[in-house]
């Protein structure tokens, strides 16, 4: 009797979860990751609706980057479910497959192809087939310069287009990475600390850019710059010790005592 009830409840819960998974673009449930016994993610659950932009905040070491690693296939979770578009189980796919599903990422530490020119970095990132065949004889060889320049102007690197990316300054590399993400034009963008090392003006510009992107894409953005997060004006999730501490509108979250305690400080 009770068993049946419990079963029933469990089934319902599962069904409800399924339902929420179905409609979501990104769905994390009970995801845990540990490194040598240290739990970086602890039963983390998070759902992102299509077209939604979500800001993630949280103390250093809360697991924000680790979460992105899990989504992009860099780190395999010990347990938990990670679904994309409600159907694709990301834990079964490798990085390239995930990227080809339409998940793009900007890394916390800017990573670009240092030996390639700025323009070629964008060229390689541009949307389109990525098979060896297309790269050899196919579409990849017919990318017009305009497409590249368009992106480069947007990230204000047009005058650097012919320079090796390795020569850029730290912040310029940040911009280049954002440019690559734009070029990739993925369904879901994961943006790890995009405005670190930017001036306030650039920060505003980036917020603008992200808002514009969010009209057509789903975005997860991690940042510590609260004025930037505020400028985004989206739902905020605060992680702490690998799980969600608070979630909601920015003014609600930033007024949360626990968030102030572990994150914002007094």
């Amino acid at each position, binding site marked *: 009797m009770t068993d049946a009830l419990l079963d029933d409840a469990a089934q319902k819960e599962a069904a409800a979860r399924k339902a929420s998974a179905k409609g979501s673009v990104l769905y994390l449930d009970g995801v845990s990751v540990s490194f040598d016994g240290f739990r970086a993610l602890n039963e983390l659950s998070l759902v992102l609706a299509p077209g939604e932009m979500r800001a993630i905040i949280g103390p*250093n070491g809360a697991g924000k980057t680790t979460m992105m690693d899990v989504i992009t296939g860099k780190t395999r979770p010990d347990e938990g479910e990670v679904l994309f578009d409600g159907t694709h189980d990301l834990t079964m796919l490798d990085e390239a497959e995930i990227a080809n599903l339409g998940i793009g990422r900007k890394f916390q*530490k800017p990573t670009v192809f240092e030996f390639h020119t700025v323009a070629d970095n964008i060229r390689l990132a541009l949307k389109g087939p990525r098979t060896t065949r297309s790269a050899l004889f196919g579409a990849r060889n017919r990318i017009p310069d305009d497409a590249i320049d368009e992106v480069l102007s947007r990230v204000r690197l047009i005058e650097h287009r012919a320079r090796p990316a390795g020569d850029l*300054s730290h912040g310029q590399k940040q911009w280049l990475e954002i440019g690559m993400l734009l070029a990739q034009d993925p369904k879901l963008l994961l943006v790890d600390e995009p405005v670190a090392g930017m001036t306030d003006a650039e920060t505003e510009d980036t917020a603008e850019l992200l808002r514009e992107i969010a009209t057509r894409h789903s975005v997860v953005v991690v940042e510590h710059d609260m004025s930037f997060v505020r400028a985004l004006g989206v739902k905020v999730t605060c992680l702490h010790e690998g799980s969600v501490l608070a979630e909601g509108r920015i003014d609600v979250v930033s007024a949360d005592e626990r968030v102030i305690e572990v994150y914002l400080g007094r």
Partner: protein
Amino acid sequence: MLSVEDIDLHYGAAQALRGVSLIAEPGQVTCVLGRNGVGKTSLLRAIVGQHPISRGRIKWNGEEIQRLSAQQRAKAGIALVPQGREIFPLLTVKENLETGFAVLPRREREIPGEVFDLFPVLDGMLRRRGGDLSGGQQQQLAIARAMVMRPKLLVLDEPTEGIQPSIIKDIGRAIAYLRSKGDMAIVLVEQYFEFARDLADRFAVLDRGQVVLSGTRAGMVEEDVRRKLAI
């Protein structure tokens, strides 16, 4: 005190600094501001000796140091918190901190307690490898590592990058505290304007490798500075 006098710096044929001058005095914070790619990091590299300058002089406590190696400058009391953290990835947190002992006489080789007061997370992670830390944790470690050297000139390149707000405040307090001890000169590169404004005794704004605005705290007009930082 540190005085940078009219220096040029090149990467190959490309010039990154043009006639830059700067002063940093003990008990004061000198802030360097500027957009991406204007030469802030290059200026700091010139000061700590990681890149040679092609013209001008750098004086530290009256002596010209532009010909000294980075290691000699470290011995002379100059410590760097680099952009991008540059943690020794395979050394543990404790070992990373202990690399700062190289400039200290044997009996002073210990990690000052104030490091852990300031960055309590590090205390719990002493045995973890530096490269495994989160970005913000690494940034904290980089600052702590420089403090272990007990420098006379502390050079910080965007130390708040990637750090959670509460700790940014702590770092601000720490810098203020170090300043207040009065024997340390601090050069701080910062994008985060408010943070810089609150700390700066002097400032210089760079644009395209040149100082376009500089002065003391008194002469620091927010409007002017912001305009120079605009895109």
